[in-house]
């Protein structure tokens, strides 16, 4: 770092600023009365001829002086800053400079302009060159004629869609989305069990297309995904369909503009699309979980590109995160090993009993009609359907309870071979009642547009529960 001038008056200015031009004629007076250093951020000819006038072409001095406005007048003595003022304030300038009568002919006050160091794009560049943020990821230099988007594809960093090339400037901006340190280690990413720093998360979030403000949600999602109970390793390598699905609750969803309404499970919302994708890119790039290699999915599901949405919270139904122990007013993510979306079209049920039976019938299809306590499921209830329950005074818990009752089946129907179908639960269940879902294996969230008597089942991994994956909820630390 260049040493800052000491025992001197410092003026930082730029030609582009009318207030700087206003004070320019005073600078010779300052120079006549003592040592002065004048730094111009743009025009090398600013204050030409005045001793101590310098062009801060690289903006390094402005950066180290933390200049936010121009003109800034600073007095430094004995290695310390004594005082500074921004813009033109006659009294301040007279006091700091010790020159009585300075600028008496000028107006008493004129505000300054923004420092060039803070212009978009420049601030990150200066931080990288002169700042204390240390990025430690390996730098990959692409060929001069190489398109950076193509370079990312060719290096295998993409899920098949274009990624945003992770330049140091973009990664630095992404890191501004959190107060945590770039070198913080967040855990081991399966399948390779590679250590993942916060910087690697930021790099993959850049590539996924995230905004910096999404970082707290991405970090909470990764935190949840890396828990033992969630079992990310199994999810990413299974021959079955599942991938990590993220349900967001709380004020953060609105703050970052997530979609919980029309087309909540579909395309078109940047936060929904890129947060889920960032998690999958971390799995791919840091963990090495790539399809056809460790990811052995027979068919997969489009949700493995990205699967993230927010709950359309309603005062009459307890939000998912609060059902799962998060305090009211906090934000949280719930990770679920999700497969695909199966619609439930019921445009005729007007009472909760009929609609619950309708839901139960559709939920029975998870994995296979003849399987029980295998895959978990998320039931996504649309606003028009939820209204049927809410108006009848059914809270979410009541619907869940009714569904659990409806989803008990005679073992004789479910056992292998019954109905002429070899698939089914073991013969030992023939004289028992078989619940469709394990206790805690059915989650209910409210989401969707305000028109449409449609809800949806999102089936979980058939290896749900302690044997495979349990849904995990973590608070988002904003």
């Amino acid at each position, binding site marked *: 770092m260049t040493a800052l001038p000491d025992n001197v008056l410092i003026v930082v200015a730029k030609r582009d600023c009318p207030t700087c031009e206003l004070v320019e004629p005073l600078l010779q007076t300052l120079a006549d009365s003592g040592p002065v250093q004048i730094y111009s951020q743009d025009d090398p000819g600013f204050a030409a001829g005045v001793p101590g006038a310098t062009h801060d072409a690289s903006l390094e001095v402005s950066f180290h002086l933390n200049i936010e406005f121009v003109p800034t007048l600073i007095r430094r003595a004995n290695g310390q800053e004594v005082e500074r003022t921004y813009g033109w304030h006659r009294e301040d300038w007279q006091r700091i400079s010790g020159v009585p009568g300075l600028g008496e002919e000028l107006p008493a006050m004129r505000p300054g302009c923004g420092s060039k160091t803070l212009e978009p794009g420049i601030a990150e560049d200066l931080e990288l060159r002169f700042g204390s943020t240390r*990025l430690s990821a*390996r*730098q*990959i230099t*692409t060929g001069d004629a190489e398109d950076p988007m193509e370079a990312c594809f060719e290096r295998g960093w993409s899920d098949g869609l274009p990624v945003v*090339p992770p*330049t140091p400037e973009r990664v630095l901006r992404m890191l501004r989305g959190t107060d945590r340190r770039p070198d913080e280690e967040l855990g081991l990413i399966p399948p390779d069990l590679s250590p993942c720093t916060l910087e690697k998360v930021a790099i993959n979030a850049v590539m996924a297309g995230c905004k910096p403000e999404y970082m707290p949600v991405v970090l909470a999602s990764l935190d949840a995904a890396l828990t033992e109970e969630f079992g990310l390793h199994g999810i990413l390598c299974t021959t079955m369909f599942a991938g990590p699905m993220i349900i967001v609750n709380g004020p953060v969803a609105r703050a970052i503009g997530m979609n919980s309404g029309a087309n909540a499970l579909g395309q078109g919302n940047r936060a929904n699309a890129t947060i889920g994708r960032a998690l999958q890119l971390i799995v791919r*790039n840091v963990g*090495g979980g790539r399809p056809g290699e460790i990811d052995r999915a027979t068919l997969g599901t489009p949700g493995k590109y990205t699967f993230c949405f927010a709950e359309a919270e309603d005062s009459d139904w307890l939000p998912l995160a609060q059902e799962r122990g998060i305090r009211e007013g906090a934000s949280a993510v719930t990770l679920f090993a999700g497969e695909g979306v199966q619609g439930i079209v019921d445009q005729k049920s007007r009472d909760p009993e009929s609609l619950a039976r309708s839901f139960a019938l559709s939920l029975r299809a998870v994995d296979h009609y003849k399987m029980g306590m295998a895959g978990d499921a998320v039931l996504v209830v649309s606003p028009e359907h939820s209204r049927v329950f809410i108006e009848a005074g059914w809270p979410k818990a009541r619907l869940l309870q009714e569904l659990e009752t409806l989803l008990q089946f005679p073992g004789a129907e479910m056992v292998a071979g019954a109905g002429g179908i070899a698939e089914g639960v073991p013969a030992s269940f023939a004289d028992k009642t078989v619940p469709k879902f394990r206790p805690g294996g059915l989650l209910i969230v409210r989401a969707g547009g305000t028109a449409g008597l449609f809800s949806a089942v999102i089936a979980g991994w058939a290896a749900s529960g302690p044997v495979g994956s349990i849904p995990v909820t973590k608070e988002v630390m904003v």
Partner: protein
Amino acid sequence: MNQNSVLLDPTAETSPAARALLARPASMIGKTVGLLDISKPRGDVFLDRIDERLQAMGVSVKRYTKPTFTRVAPTALKQQIAAEVDLVVEGLAD
């Protein structure tokens, strides 16, 4: 200099930054070799001789020709070669 020419590695950095060339095949037996004539004069002389020597080794050979050496190969030709052969030899100069 392209402003995006430095990228930060998103991976666990367990493989080299410079991408390795594909490994040479341990043996030519059972492989099909494509000979691509880029349509520069006398390229065929070179490739005819390679053809003779490969056939003498019992390697099967397929011949292809680019319409002109001044442009990259048409996509359809590249796809055809990639689908039909294991290795490609081309003569780059006259």
